[in-house]
């Protein structure tokens, strides 16, 4: 395909991405360097880096960062391990019933995140099933406290994200060559060794891929924390995105929130840049 034809085909899409992704990103940088609130939205005042100083001096920002990192550290490994184990089990059962199991397991993933969180929360309302079971087992009533709300956000994140790693790992296991496993079995490798040295090695690129995606998704978690906390500050369970939203829409500090968004962009680069470089290399090779 000629370059000119290529740009005719991709033109509309590129224009849209330029206009609504690159341009806004530049604008966010600019907003972060100005003083803009809802009241002077037409007349921003340039203030340099003062918004960034503001953000970095804000204890709530650090608390949100801490909670977001906690979420990543707990949820990403948990959902990947759970997904991998369930994929191994799913691989073992009869193909006839597999579809049914898989369909049911996908439910948390396909459900609207806000709705899924509401459903999860229903179980823990004062008259909810799990809240009652909790009370029967521990002898204490279940309340929404800082700890319990944070725990629920963590649990819900794992619940909704596990199906993704499960499906990807399961699909990966289907492409594992049976000859390789047979050869290993003949050489006396037991099942644990087969999983460790053959299945895990085979799935390695997928594991890296799922890990990166999960880290990036958890980093920008918003929906479930919004529903669980209802923007109530007493739970101290803000994620970075949720706190930026509050600063922008409730406090009406568009400038400070933009500075925070830019800091978030810089933060994710740690994971994103290696991912982009490896994608770039493989695409250049492939073409």
């Amino acid at each position, binding site marked *: 395909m000629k370059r000119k034809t290529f740009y005719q085909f991709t033109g509309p899409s590129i224009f849209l991405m330029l206009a609504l992704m690159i*341009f806004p990103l530049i604008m*966010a940088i600019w907003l972060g360097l100005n003083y803009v609130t809802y009241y002077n939205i037409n007349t921003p005042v340039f203030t340099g880096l003062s918004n960034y100083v503001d953000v970095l001096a804000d204890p709530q920002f650090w608390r949100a960062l801490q909670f977001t990192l906690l979420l990543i550290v707990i949820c990403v490994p948990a959902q990947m391990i759970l997904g991998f184990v369930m994929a191994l089990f799913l691989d073992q059962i009869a193909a006839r019933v597999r579809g049914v199991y898989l369909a049911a397991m996908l439910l948390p993933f396909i459900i609207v995140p806000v709705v899924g969180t509401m459903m999860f929360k229903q179980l823990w309302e004062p008259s909810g099933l799990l809240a009652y079971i909790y009370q029967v087992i521990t002898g204490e009533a279940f309340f929404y406290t800082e700890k319990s709300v944070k725990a629920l956000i963590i649990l819900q994140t794992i619940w909704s994200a596990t199906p993704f790693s499960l499906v990807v790992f399961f699909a990966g296991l289907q492409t594992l060559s049976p000859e390789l496993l047979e050869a290993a079995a003949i050489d006396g490798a037991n099942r644990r060794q087969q999983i460790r040295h053959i299945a895990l090695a085979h799935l390695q690129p997928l594991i890296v891929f799922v890990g990166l995606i999960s880290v990036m998704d958890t980093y920008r978690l918003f929906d479930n924390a919004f529903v669980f906390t209802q923007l109530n500050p007493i739970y101290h369970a803000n994620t970075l995105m949720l706190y930026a939203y509050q600063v922008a829409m409730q406090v009406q500090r568009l400038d400070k929130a933009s500075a925070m*968004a830019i800091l978030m962009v810089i933060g994710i680069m740690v994971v994103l840049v290696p991912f*982009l470089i490896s*994608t770039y290399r493989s*695409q250049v090779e492939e073409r």
Partner: protein
Amino acid sequence: MQPIKHPLARGLIYLILSLFVAYSILPFLWTLLQSFKTVLDAHALPPVLIFTPTFSNYSQLWLNKVPAEFPRILAFLLAAIAILALVAIFVRRLPFSKAAVYWAIAGLTILTLWTLPRVVSTAEFYNYFLNTVIITVGTVAVSISIGCLAGYGLARFAGLDGVIILVAALAFRALPRMAFVLPYYWLATLTGLRDTYFLVIVCLVAVNQPFTIWMLRSFFMEIPREIEEAAMMDGAGRLQSFLRVIVPITWPGIISTSLFTVMLAYNEFMLVLVLTQSKWTLPVAMAQFTGGEDPGYITMASAAAVSATIPIIILIIFFQKHLVKGLASGAVKG
């Protein structure tokens, strides 16, 4: 992996998987149960599992006032949906062209959605549902049409700029939405476009475009070049051979991508929350169901949650193959 032979071990595997399924669907089942309870039953302690079901939560959610002839209207609606579904399933056996039948179904659906509020007095929730339908359909239509062109171009062009565009798109996909949404909000307030379908659709198309072009490109790459080359030999232009030859054979892939785009638009919360004031979609409307002092909250929120989930479940039942294929094949995800 080779199958485990030991019967006890196999039983254990089935047990663990079944427990995992239970864990996956428990929130949904519990909410479904709560949505059919009276307010009193929903608050009972210990929670009741056996009760007389009521539909009043659903009728309260969707309707302002239940009209006297409501059972007849409901029966008519259900019959209409059943007939349309049958027509859609058996479209190949009908003596009309497929496209004509699909257009007719789409037209009838729009007509029904539009007429309904004029026949019965629908509640706010129906408006949120309509907003969601409008925004989702608009986003899918625009996103897939420009995405197909771009995905095809990227699949066939070997230059380095193609790779750079792809990688840049991936970067934008991964960045936190807040960095785009705040400038959108600022511009929307300045231009007065806030709270319009147009703005929400355009922004949704833009933020989903990277995902769309990556996924569609992977499907177009599976189509051998010889096919369009043959068409072009016969005198068709690039665009013509793309539309007449390539698109029809890539159709399953395009459906797969559309399915994901539907879900992304239907699920979107933060962007719509920031960019709308009254044209809320279902997720935004439902996040406002706060607990507080209202005792009817649990049953209403449950009915709303189930109502919002049913369209997605129906969609997935019809297109499960596409969903799993898309998830598994894709080095991309929404």
